[in-house]
């Protein structure tokens, strides 16, 4: 019988005929299939499941299961939001102890890591960065990583900073070599035409000059891009790389989220376009928001 060779049935078939049997015991393969479908929106349920039996806990804590779980659910759920002051506002039941980082400033979070600036000590900051204005943390894999399970792997930290003479500096740390790169500098008063952002780059908003800094640690190069609006916009400013590789820029003004994209015009010159404003009051139930969210 070919079927018997292809699949090994570990349960007694005779039990099917007994109407009074207790609920069937599922074979391990199928427990795996069920547990992998537990919703990531409810992390406490995964913990509850791990206390059902030791074999379930073994399944759930197995690294093969963890990678399959990530693969299965693809887009990881938002477990919480870090406020700039290092307080995590949970959006699910997940709130492990010591998750809040008091007296810290959140510079960036991405690829399963958070970059915090410790306001009590600046020892990790390389000497030539007199004043850190922004930073980014990212997976060290340039390509070929889906960033679903790389948070334990090698990473890089890029920092940009300014000195009192108006010079901007940037450098990158590699966890693999445990060293900071030589710094790349730029005079912010130099008239540099905006470059179209592509491939490997990091973009920051510089808090002092209200300009976007483009830092490519690979070249390395540092350059300046003007923001789409001249006025100071320091509330909720996010500079991001869009899915198509272009540059996105958002900020909040008068309870509206303003979104800009940089696109090439007919002559191939990059231009800020696609302006869109989203009225947040209409979108978010402000009255129902967590008090923690409203305090900032």
């Amino acid at each position, binding site marked *: 019988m070919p079927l*018997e060779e292809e*699949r090994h049935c570990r349960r007694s*078939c005779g039990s099917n005929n007994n109407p009074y049997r*207790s609920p*069937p015991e599922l074979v391990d393969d199928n427990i795996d299939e*069920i547990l992998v479908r537990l*919703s990531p929106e409810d992390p406490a349920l995964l913990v509850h499941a791990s206390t059902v039996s030791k074999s379930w806990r073994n399944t759930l804590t197995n690294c093969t299961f963890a990678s399959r779980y990530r693969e299965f659910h693809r887009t990881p759920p938002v477990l919480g939001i870090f406020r700039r002051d290092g307080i995590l506002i949970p959006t699910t039941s997940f709130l492990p102890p010591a998750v809040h980082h008091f007296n810290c400033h959140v510079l960036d979070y991405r690829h399963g890591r958070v970059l915090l600036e410790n306001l009590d000590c600046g020892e990790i900051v390389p000497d030539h960065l007199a004043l850190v204005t922004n930073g980014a943390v990212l997976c060290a894999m340039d390509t070929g990583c889906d960033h679903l399970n790389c948070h334990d792997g090698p990473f890089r930290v890029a920092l940009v900073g300014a000195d009192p003479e108006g010079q901007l500096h940037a450098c990158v740390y590699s966890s693999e070599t445990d060293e900071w790169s030589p710094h790349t500098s730029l005079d912010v008063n130099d008239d540099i035409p905006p470059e179209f952002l592509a491939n490997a780059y990091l973009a920051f908003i510089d808090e002092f000059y209200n300009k976007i800094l483009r830092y490519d640690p690979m070249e390395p190069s540092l350059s300046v891009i003007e923001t789409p609006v001249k006025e100071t916009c320091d509330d909720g400013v996010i500079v991001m790389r869009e899915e198509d590789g272009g540059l996105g820029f958002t900020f909040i003004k008068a309870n509206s989220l303003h979104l800009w994209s940089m696109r090439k015009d007919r002559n191939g010159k990059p231009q800020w376009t696609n302006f869109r404003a989203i009225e947040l009051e209409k979108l978010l139930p402000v009255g129902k928001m967590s008090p923690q969210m409203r305090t900032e």
Partner: protein
Amino acid sequence: MEVDKGKGEAEETRKVAEADRDTVTLKSSDGKLFEVSKEAAARLSTVLAGMIAGGSIDDNGTDLKQIGSEALENVVDYCNKHANSIPSAALISSSISFNTAPFKEPEEWERKFVDRLSHDALFDLVEAANFLGMERLLDVTCHKISEMMKGKSPDQIREVFNIKNDYTKEELEEIRQELAWAFYDD
């Protein structure tokens, strides 16, 4: 030689006749026979597809000794319903590349199909789906069971799955302390 040749021809004729049929007959562990659309069986079950392609389908009922009649009836019912419904692109892609494609929510009729099943029938259907390599049916049934666990305590989950608690009180307490955030609502 002639006898063998004759036997070979008969075998060939039987196979041709079978290849022409639109359905295949499956036999449960307790000897009941079920007809199922050949197209749907081949599309939904990798094991049945292999048997159909390899010519190992028995015209008098292919023995599925590991599957009881109730579970097999549900398998067949699912295949036939699937054959009658308009399969969406999402469903097809999900059943072909199950391990890489993201999970697609069950369609309305699939939801209704598993909702009417008792726990036992549902669990038996998971086993049957796994045995027959029916990835989409496994997807839908396992999704239903994982939904059943929502809001249940570990004790209630053990009851549903008929699982013996093999933890000591101390071991459980240790986990509860280590992962206290998960037990705030208790």
